[in-house]
């Protein structure tokens, strides 16, 4: 996590196990991306299997699960889709609902955009096509202010995460009810642990930590309160808009 601002402002920067983002030659960069995606892979393992089982139980066929994971590729949206198909909801209503569930990706895509100004439009489209909550979180935590993202590195993260999702959901659908306890071991906690680690690294990345900690507290609070009245994905949008503003204003005052 060698972010330039951190390198100049901080004298005792703790080391992390993460190498530089996307500065290496393409093959190396792709391999670095694959390595950075390991926590996402661990998380998708449990949720992917769980989704496959749920989808199969709801009457979705194995090839349908595979196609859905290949072209839709969105965890919570796939659970919602399966639920709505099983409930016999009309296609148009399902598609509108999925748009509302996934519209939060606008924020992820916008937040990545300053880091890919040097890339071609088709490269940015490819990167965006495989953006998820988890791949965004991993990628963003490696990109300090003004640091350019390598296309090869980003595709490494995206492709291995996507491949894991397709394989695990399909395997889950094939095995179906043969898997009785998908929560065994604790892999279902992998993504929560990943979000926790990335949040700490992000806070550590800011020039001063107070505004970031305040933003995180506000973000967590708004996310929970808002999810009592709106769907969880909208609560994330509300929390992001409020918390990012709080963080930016506090950091400007501290400067």
């Amino acid at each position, binding site marked *: 996590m060698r972010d330039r601002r951190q390198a100049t402002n901080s004298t005792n920067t703790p080391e992390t196990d993460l190498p530089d983002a996307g500065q290496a030659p393409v093959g190396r960069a792709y391999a670095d991306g694959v390595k950075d995606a*390991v*926590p996402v892979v661990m998380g998708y393992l449990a949720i992917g299997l769980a989704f496959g089982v749920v989808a199969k139980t709801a009457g979705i*066929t194995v090839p*349908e699960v595979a196609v859905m994971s290949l*072209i*839709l*590729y969105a965890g919570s*949206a796939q659970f919602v889709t399966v639920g709505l*198909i099983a409930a016999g909801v009309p*296609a148009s209503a399902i*598609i*509108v609902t*999925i*748009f509302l569930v*996934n519209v939060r*990706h*606008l*924020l*992820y*895509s*916008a*937040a*990545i*955009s300053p880091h890919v100004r040097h890339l071609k*439009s088709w490269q940015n*489209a490819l990167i965006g096509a495989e*953006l998820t*909550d988890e791949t965004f*979180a991993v990628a*963003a*935590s490696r990109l300090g202010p003004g640091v350019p993202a390598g296309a090869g590195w980003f595709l490494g993260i995206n492709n291995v995460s996507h491949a894991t999702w397709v394989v695990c959901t399909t395997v889950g659908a094939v095995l179906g009810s043969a898997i009785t306890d998908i929560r065994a*071991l*604790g892999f279902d*906690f992998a*993504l*929560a*642990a*990943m*979000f*926790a*680690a*990335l*949040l*700490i*690294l992000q806070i550590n990345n800011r020039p001063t930590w107070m505004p*970031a900690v305040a*933003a*995180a507290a*506000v973000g*967590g609070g708004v*996310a929970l309160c808002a*999810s009592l009245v709106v769907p*969880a994905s909208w609560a*994330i949008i509300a*929390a992001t808009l409020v*918390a*990012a*503003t709080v963080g930016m204003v506090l*950091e*400007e005052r501290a400067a």
Partner: protein
Amino acid sequence: MIRTQVFLIILGAAIVTLIPRIAPLVLLSRITLPGRVVRWLEFVPVAVLSALLAQAVAMPEGRLLLPPENLAMIAIVPVLLIAVRTRSLIKTVAGGVVVMALLRWMLG
């Protein structure tokens, strides 16, 4: 077997998902954003992560759940300590999986 109706639903859902994923990346990367917008966008990861973490820990089944039913709320304490202490993504994720497995073994 892939049913046509199901395939069309998946295809439609995929297209409306691609738009918010791709459009800002392609359009915003071509223009120079004002400094304040860029600084706001720099705070989006912290904001998103705190929201995702809060939901993952407090609402593991999609609704608010407290301990002892919600083991994630217990497990997050040692996991945050590991994260602060090691500043390592891999160690924190591995530690989280082990902590959760131990909690289930002891309390489950």
